[in-house]
């Protein structure tokens, strides 16, 4: 596959762009593979990529029900940060954030990582204490964050109303090296790199069953027939429970809708990401000028990829209070994705009751930021059969043993 470079752009400009190649191939499935990944979203593709790159396993198929990156990878608000409280979360999210820094070079694909800084507002005294504690924890974990004053908040984001009537801003947790990325490009970049390594990305192919013998998976039944495999990775956020059920086990996961929306494009007015967890909303400005807005999940089990209007209303009410200048903005698009929520709001990267079947799920509302780190850890687990240091704490048996990685309190609700 030809490399993308400034010279390639110049060359193609001179010949009317007739020489660009397809970024990935669309092969028919082979009879069997060394490893099959179910789910060609960011996490699935990243898993395949690091299986090939770090562990030399390249006879891999990535099977996707719809189109690649068409699930939550294409539906999130693209925030990348690693300011978590618990050591195991900070480790995997920080690994992920640091991989994002060089991802465009690694993949030879511009994922538009923009380390513009992520600010989490503290608007109650409880939150001030919570974020100061997180900043101290981050210092010990080697994650660069700081607790900043309201004056610094105003300097960094002048459109923010720091003395609002209900919840004045009392400070903020600031991660200068966090930011945003281009969500689709992350999936596309990984897909192109996987295809280049000779892996098969099989789209429009739904898994209908998991075949196993003597406690080991032998392959998957799909709409394109049976495909055999030596190892199976299930990476299907939103439908993890369904695929796990096919494999014969139940996950401590519930599916709920999370919505996001964008406004009409306006001139640049904020160059950081702001999250306001007390009033519950977060916002950043895309390169196109749209304000990208998200809030909390809807409150009931749902697989419809659409949510309830009053949740958007709640989010916008919160953000208008925080950013008065957006009160007259028109909203252009609104959508929903189905997220896996676990009991402790932390992900599962785990072995399963089937010896050669592994699962990566439960990223809840914060999966995008974790894509490279999650893929890295999942590939290590699949290649060696045992979790490496990044995934060690995230097994699915922690719920039975009470080893929770409790981030639902630490991270507020926005994740």
């Amino acid at each position: 596959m030809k490399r993308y470079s400034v010279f390639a752009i110049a060359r193609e400009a001179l010949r009317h762009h007739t020489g660009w190649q397809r970024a990935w191939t669309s092969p028919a499935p082979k009879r069997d593979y060394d490893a099959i990944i179910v789910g060609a979203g960011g996490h699935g593709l990243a898993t395949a990529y690091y299986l090939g790159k770090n562990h030399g396993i390249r006879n891999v198929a990535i099977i996707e029900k719809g189109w690649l990156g068409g699930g939550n990878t294409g539906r999130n608000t693209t925030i990348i940060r690693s300011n978590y409280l618990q050591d195991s979360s900070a480790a995997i999210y920080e690994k992920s954030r640091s991989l994002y820094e060089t991802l465009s070079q690694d993949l030879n694909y511009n994922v538009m990582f923009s380390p513009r800084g992520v600010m989490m507002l503290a608007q109650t005294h409880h939150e001030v204490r919570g974020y100061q504690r997180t900043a101290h924890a981050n210092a010990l974990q080697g994650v660069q964050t700081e607790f900043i004053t309201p004056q610094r908040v105003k300097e960094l984001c002048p459109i923010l109303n720091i003395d609002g009537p209900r919840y004045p801003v009392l400070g903020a947790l600031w991660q200068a090296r966090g930011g945003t990325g281009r969500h689709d490009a992350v999936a596309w970049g990984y897909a192109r790199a996987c295809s280049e390594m000779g892996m098969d990305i099989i789209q429009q192919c739904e898994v209908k069953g998991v075949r196993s013998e003597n406690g080991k998976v032998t392959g998957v039944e799909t709409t394109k027939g049976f495909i055999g495999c030596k190892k199976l990775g299930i990476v299907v956020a939103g439908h993890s429970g369904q695929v796990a059920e096919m494999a014969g086990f139940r996950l401590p996961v519930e599916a709920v809708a999370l919505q996001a929306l964008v406004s009409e494009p306006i001139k640049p007015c904020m160059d950081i990401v702001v999250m306001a967890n007390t009033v519950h909303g977060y916002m950043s400005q895309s390169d196109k000028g749209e304000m990208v807005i998200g809030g909390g999940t809807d409150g009931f089990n749902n697989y419809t990829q659409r949510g309830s209007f009053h949740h958007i209303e709640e989010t916008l009410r919160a953000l208008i209070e925080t950013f008065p200048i957006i009160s007259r903005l028109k909203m252009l698009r609104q959508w929903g994705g189905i997220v896996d929520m676990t009991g402790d709001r932390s992900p599962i990267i785990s072995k399963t009751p089937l010896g050669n079947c592994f699962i990566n799920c439960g990223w809840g509302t914060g999966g995008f930021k974790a894509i490279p780190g999650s893929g890295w850890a999942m590939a290590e687990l699949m290649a060696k059969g045992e979790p490496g240091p990044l995934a060690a704490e995230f097994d699915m048996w922690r719920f039975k043993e009470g080893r929770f990685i409790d981030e639902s309190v630490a991270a507020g609700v926005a994740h």
Partner: protein
Amino acid sequence: MLLLECPYCGVKAEETELSPGYEAHLKRFGPGSTDEEFEAYMFARKNPKGVHFERWRHSYGCGKWFLAARCTATLEVFGTYPAQVGEPPADIIEKIKARRPDWKGYK
């Protein structure tokens, strides 16, 4: 917009009047139960894509908890019923079977 009829006050309540309470008919386990039972009670939800029995509270109405049968894939509501029952009433089960012939049943 989800509309559920409160079985106590008969009001067809709209979602903003209600608070969701997730899966219904859980068998509770406490001290003396095994780790597996307790984990299943605490965390292992059925989470079906399809017919789901769940708890709702008419929080801005009569304030009482009731139960609902709803499809998580289409948001279709099959019916609501009072919470003081061990399992879904027969008429609700019949309604679901009529609408979902391939439904595998409540268990």
